[in-house]
């Protein structure tokens, strides 16, 4: 790995130049492939430039939360594989992977992308649990947008496995046949994550890994239907209200462009 000195990135940015010659609001090439893991109920592989992630959706039957007895359960998890970046190490999930998973989760949840009511099997007792697991395979910057895109692409690709409810001695048994896929998951929104970075006082989008080493701060927005459904600022460094508003404006546009790629 050749790494670029963050000071060089800052200088270039001041001059209005990005290290890979993109416009400040330009994304790298995005590739989306779905259905790549047959054993998952849904799956997608996303590349944004050199960043590669896979999201897989698995479904199980479980109990609802006591305060939402007729809602299904959505659980999002991200694994930074040790092979994705020279500094990742094994061990319990750390701050960055927890934040990543939680931001992607909120993007889906707050935009009401999935109709959780339709995941209820028996009120207060049995609901579908939807696990969105994201493997980071190669880290070339902007993991949040790649992970969020893989997550929604995998959810759109998801079909319920066949469920048989068998009554025996007054007790119900729930038997899932994972080999048979049935109806698609009720996905009603397509939230898109758009991330901006501030370098040398300038705002640019989709930072690559070299740019991330030079950022003052980043803001990720989850965009749905011309609304902002979630925001997360990360990294030290602050933003003015004007900067945040500018990010919101561009994010709306970018989100539409990226959403169109989901088909």
């Amino acid at each position, binding site marked *: 790995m050749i790494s670029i000195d963050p000071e060089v990135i800052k200088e270039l940015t001041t001059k209005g130049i990005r290290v890979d010659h993109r416009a400040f609001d330009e994304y790298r090439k995005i590739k989306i492939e779905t259905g790549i893991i047959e054993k998952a109920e849904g799956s997608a592989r996303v590349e944004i430039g050199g960043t590669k992630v896979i999201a897989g959706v698995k479904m199980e039957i479980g109990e609802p939360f006591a305060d939402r007895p007729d809602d299904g359960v959505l659980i999002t998890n991200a694994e930074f594989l040790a092979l994705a970046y020279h500094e990742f190490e094994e061990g319990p999930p750390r*701050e960055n992977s927890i934040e990543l998973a939680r931001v992607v989760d909120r993007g889906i949840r*707050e935009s009401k992308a999935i109709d959780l009511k339709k995941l209820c099997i028996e009120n207060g007792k049995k609901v579908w649990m939807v696990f969105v697991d994201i493997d980071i395979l190669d880290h070339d910057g902007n993991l949040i947008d790649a992970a969020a895109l893989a997550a929604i692409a995998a959810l759109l690709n998801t079909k319920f496995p066949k469920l048989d409810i068998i009554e025996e001695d007054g007790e119900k048994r729930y038997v899932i046949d994972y080999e048979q896929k049935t109806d698609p998951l009720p996905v009603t929104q397509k939230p898109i994550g758009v991330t901006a970075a501030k370098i040398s006082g300038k705002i640019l989008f989709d930072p690559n890994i070299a740019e991330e080493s030079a950022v003052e701060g980043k803001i990720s927005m989850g965009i749905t239907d011309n*609304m*902002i459904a979630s*925001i*997360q*600022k990360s990294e030290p*460094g*602050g933003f003015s209200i004007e900067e945040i508003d500018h990010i919101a404006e561009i994010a709306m546009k970018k989100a539409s462009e990226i959403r169109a790629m989901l088909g």
Partner: protein
Amino acid sequence: MEQKLIVDGKRIDGRTFDQLRPMEARAGILKNADGSGYFRLGRTIAIAGIFGPRQVHPRHMEEAEAAILKCRYNMASFSTTERNRPGPSRRSKEISKVIREALMPVLFLEEFPKSAIDLHVEILQADASTRCAGINAASIALADAGIPMRDLIASCSVGVVEGQIMLDIAGKEDTEGDVDLPIAYYPKRDLITLLQMDGMVTREQLKQLLELAKKGAMQVYEAQRQALRSKYLEE
């Protein structure tokens, strides 16, 4: 929409839309910590303690050119309606991270290479905006510890409840509201150093929310400065 959280233009606890809950700020409340702070916002109570700058443990986390700020946000087991199980959770780890990042811009970390500043934020009672109260207590604690700072960071939250933008949502407004948006604010540079949001807003609403949050933060800022002034006058 049936209006239950807004009655006659007032909120359930009688506040106006742009009113913070009663605040209480104090500096130097602990004996052992190098610096400490207390911040109460209604029923939300946070304390913060600082040790450092001091040697880094474990050593391999040490940085050659600047101090590291370590932050641990924790909710006391008895702070919540349903008992909070002890130990770090995914939520508390994320909040520890955003608190740390919110405070770093005002610290001269580069003045203390190879050292650590340890910040512990304990939420004694939780009724919304715990990360904000924690940041406010932490700012006071950092100043109380005599750690050089460019400014204090002041934090509060705004939200949308029954379509209405309001400052510092709490109680049922928190559990039944539509949008929750905490910020941390760096007054001297007019910068937002923490920003998170759950819920759906338009671009225009976002701007209004941020303007309102800034106003709230400036009141917090005043309370923090008052707390530090009182302590120094006492001494």
